[in-house]
Every structure is written in structure tokens, then in C-alpha cells.
């Protein structure tokens, strides 16, 4: 668990982060979102002490980070930045091996770990291990950047706009991959972005920041239903609200008994996807199939619309 307590950073009279406190549960993905200059990157960089806080403290599993030597702390926290900062003079395998080498792992263990990570990120070791960063596409560089950050099995991963340099199609794929890897490894992730869609797509919890202050820290649904103030409401996007709610809910929640014609919808799909399928195919209802493909009921346009209302 990460506890952020009254974290403040001032440069002269300019306050960049003001009295921010919140807690991040282990194994969750927290997104810090806000306009540029809101202080989100500085907040993130205070957690691995790339920026020293003016006041306040950060506890990781109850341990005050100020008591841990800087380098030791950073070896234990993965860090991914926009553009990734891969070392141009080192090949993919050596890039990924950076922190294990700093920690003095033996050669065999490093080689094993590198291979494991390349597999995890769907990069064929035979093809990619010896390539240099400039020979990779943007999406591949991004994966190597995240793999490098995860090399020494950090319990916490900090990501600063990790998808900012990718085009829309690759970005969506990279986001899904990150979610899958996070679920699989159980890593706690704190991710900074200015993209509200990304925040809703990825975040278990979302922290909204503006002008150095934390405005609201809540689950995505809570943020939609009860925005703390006008700024949060505007950032969330009033017109987008019902659709965002539907994106958060699964078909599971709207299954009703009965039969329907047409190609079945998976129970794990979001209601947003289900509604667009219904609209596109012109059906009023479609059957719902569980993971094994068995029909367990149906989902209807009316049933879905129920879930897009502010007061259920």
C-alpha cells in the first residue's frame, strides 16, 4: 500500500503540488489525471524522490521513503516516462537488464528474466533481444520501456504519460496489454495522464488534480455520479457521462431472462460495446453467452439504457 501524506512541493513562491494526500491499495491501478501544469508529474516524481518534497511524506508498505537511500528506493520502483528514454547504445536485452545489473544479479538469472519479459510482452527473444532501440517501432519501444521497468519485479510501477507518443490504434492495444499484465502480475501502478478516456479505461481509482491541488480521488463510477466540483464535472465531460457509465459496466449486470435472435454477445463485454452492437445491427435485443459459449439470457436496448442513468 502507498500512503501519500500532505505532500507539498514549492519552487520559491510557486506551489506545484499543494497538500496532496491519498492512499493507493496494493495491486490496483490508480490514474492521476489533470490539465497540463496541474502538478501530476511532480507528484509522481516525489514518490521515487526524483523530486524531493518540500513537506509531507510517502509511505510504501508503512515504510517512510525518506529513510530509504534514493538509489535503493528507485531500484524497487519501476519508472516509465513518455518517450521511454531507452538507452540508444544498448540493445533490447541489455536495456531490460539495466536494473538487475545494478542490483548485481548473476548472468544466468538476468538472461532468464529478460527472456521471460520479452515473452510476456510478445516480443520474440530470438528476433528482438539483439535489436537496438532505433530499430524498433513506437509500440515495440513502449513495450521494451515497460519491460525494463518491471525487470527487477518492483511492487510499484510509476508511469508518466506512457502512451503519449503512440498513435490511437496502437495506444488502445498498449492500454489493454498493460491492463492484462497488471492483472497477471498484481503490480501496483500509478499512472499520470491528461487523457480522461485513458483514465476511465485504465483506472481502478482516479485522482483528479488541478492547479497543484487534488480535487477528487474516487472510483470512476463515483467520479461520474458525484463529481466533487464544477471542474471535475467539466473534465469528466457532461455529455459523455452516460456512455462512460456504460463503458464501466459489464453485460453481466444487465442480463435479463428470455431469448433473442442474432449473434450472441459475451457476458464480459462492456455495456457500451453491447449497445453499439445493438444499434449497429438494428436489434432490440441480443442473446448473451457466457465464457463457454452457452446462452444464459439476453440483453436489450431498454435494459442497457437503465444503466446509463444517474439515479438507477
Amino acid at each position, binding site marked *: 500500500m502507498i500512503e501519500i501524506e500532505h505532500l507539498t512541493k514549492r519552487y520559491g513562491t510557486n506551489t506545484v503540488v499543494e497538500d496532496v494526500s491519498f492512499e493507493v491499495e496494493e495491486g490496483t491501478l490508480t490514474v492521476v489525471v489533470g490539465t497540463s501544469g496541474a502538478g501530476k508529474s511532480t507528484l509522481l516524481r516525489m514518490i*521515487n524522490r*526524483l523530486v524531493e518534497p518540500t513537506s509531507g511524506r510517502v509511505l510504501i508498505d508503512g515504510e517512510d521513503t525518506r529513510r530509504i537511500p*534514493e*538509489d*535503493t*528506493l*528507485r*531500484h524497487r520502483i519501476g*519508472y516509465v*516516462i*513518455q*518517450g*521511454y*528514454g*531507452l*538507452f*540508444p*547504445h544498448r540493445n533490447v536485452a541489455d536495456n531490460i537488464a*539495466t*536494473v538487475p545489473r*545494478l542490483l548485481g544479479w548473476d548472468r544466468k538469472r538476468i538472461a532468464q528474466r529478460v527472456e521471460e519479459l520479452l515473452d510476456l510482452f510478445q516480443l520474440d527473444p530470438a528476433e528482438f533481444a539483439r535489436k*537496438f*532501440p*532505433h*530499430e524498433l517501432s513506437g509500440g515495440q519501444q513502449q513495450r521494451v520501456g515497460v519491460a*525494463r*521497468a518491471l525487470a527487477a519485479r518492483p511492487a510499484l510501477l*510509476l508511469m508518466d504519460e506512457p502512451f503519449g507518443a503512440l498513435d490511437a490504434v496502437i495506444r488502445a492495444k498498449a492500454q489493454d496489454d498493460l491492463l492484462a499484465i497488471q492483472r497477471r502480475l498484481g503490480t501496483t501502478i500509478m499512472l499520470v495522464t491528461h487523457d480522461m478516456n485513458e483514465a476511465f479505461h485504465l483506472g481502478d481509482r482516479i485522482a483528479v488534480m488541478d492547479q497543484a491541488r487534488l480535487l477528487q480521488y474516487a472510483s470512476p463510477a463515483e467520479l461520474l455520479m458525484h463529481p466533487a466540483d464544477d471542474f471535475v464535472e467539466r473534465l469528466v465531460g457532461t455529455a459523455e457521462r452516460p456512455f462512460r457509465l456504460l463503458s464501466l459496466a459489464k453485460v453481466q449486470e444487465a442480463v435479463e431472462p428470455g431469448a433473442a435472435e442474432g449473434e450472441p454477445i459475451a457476458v464480459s463485454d462492456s455495456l457500451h460495446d453491447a449497445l453499439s452492437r445493438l444499434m449497429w445491427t438494428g436489434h432490440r435485443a441480443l442473446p448473451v453467452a457466457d465464457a463457454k459459449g452457452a446462452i444464459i439470457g439476453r440483453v436489450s436496448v431498454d435494459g442497457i439504457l437503465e444503466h446509463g442513468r444517474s439515479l438507477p
Partner: protein
Amino acid sequence: MKLSSLIRLTALILLVAFIVMPHAFAFVFEPLTVNRAPAIYNQGSLLTLTLQHLRTVVLATLASTVIAVALGIFVTRPSGTEFLPLSRSLVNIGQTFPPIAVLAIAVPLVGFGEKPTFIALFLYGLLPIFENTLTGLTQVSPQTLEAARGMGMNDRQRLFQVELPLAFPLILAGIRLSVIISLGTATIGSTVAAKGLGEVIIAGLQSNNIAFVLQGGLVVALLAVLIHDGLGLIERLAARKLGRSLDEVS
């Protein structure tokens, strides 16, 4: 084999052959002599002179490299940035001061021989290496450095594992420049009794023997071209590893 490498190889073979057995080439230089003057330098072995010439150049460049790179590293650290303008002007003075003037000043202090030449070459060679080290170290992308810091590399690890390897091709280019300048400049060392190929040229000038002048000049020129080429090759290899063509680096 490409034509260019063929030419290089021929030049190398010619150079070595001429230095080792210059008398075999006497027929080339005889037409240039008058009054039956000797066609081939006869006051010492060309091989010894060449090796001594190279020794002075290598030692001086080595010293310039150590000092210039160390200085370049120092002024790019946070604690040394204040000294950047000062070291720049110092190194610049080394370059603007003519080597012949350095010799004139150095001889009364350290005497005749190789020492004053060494000092002149050392001072003259500082600037290219220093400036290239500076450029190399400052052009490392801030993202790369941020990532290095974020992964827990300390200052020393960042310098040796990230900054210097990335600056290496540029530093090498500076060294190459410095070696080439020194090879030519070292000939004037013979005016203060340093052993080197300048001796051949000066002997030729004194006895009005164009053959001598030409021999000394040709050996120095061929050495310069070949060394320039060889170092350029290493640079390209280093730069290719970084995924950049040499044109981008220099």
C-alpha cells in the same frame, strides 16, 4: 574490394616500403636533385625518424585527450558548470597561440629537444577534443538521463554507463582531428632539435634539396591520411552501434 580501400592499401604498402628501404625509391627522386646531391635522406634512418615522429604525436595526443576529456566531464557536472566559460577560454588560447610561438617560449624553460614540441602539440590538440567531449556529453537526451536516474543509477553509473558511451563517437572524432593537426605541426619541432620527420624537410631546405623536402612531406602526408582513415573507420563502427550515421554525429 572497393576501389577506395584498394587505394588505401596501396598507399599503406608504399609508405611502409619507402620507410623501410628508401634507397629502392632513389630513382623517383633523382630527377629532383642537382649537382649530384643525394636523392635519399642520408643523415639518419627514415624508419627511426618516423617512429619518433609518431611517438611525439601519440604521447601529446594522449595527454591532450586525458586532460580535455577530464575537463569536459568536469564542466558538465553540476558542480563544475561555473568553470565552463573559463575552461573554454583557456583551451581556446591553447589553439590560437601559434605552435611556433609556444616553442619559442618553451625552449628557454625546458631546453631543446622533444619537450617543447610535446608542449606545443599538447596545447594545440586540446581544443578539438574538449569541444567534442562537451558536445557529446551535452547532447545526450534528457529523457535518457531521466530514465537512468529513475532506475536508480548514481552519478558515476550514469557517467560511465550512459553519458560517456553515448559521447564516445564524438570524442573519437575530436581525437582524430587533434592527431591530424599534430602530425603536421610536429614537423616544426625539428627547428628546436626534436627528432622527427621535420628533420628531413629542414635538411632539404638548408641544402636546397627538393628531394628531401618532398620525402619528408610525403611521409607525413601519407601518415596523416592513413591515420585519419583508420580512426574514421573506428568512429563509424561506434556510431553505427548507436544507429546514427557519422554525418549526423559530426
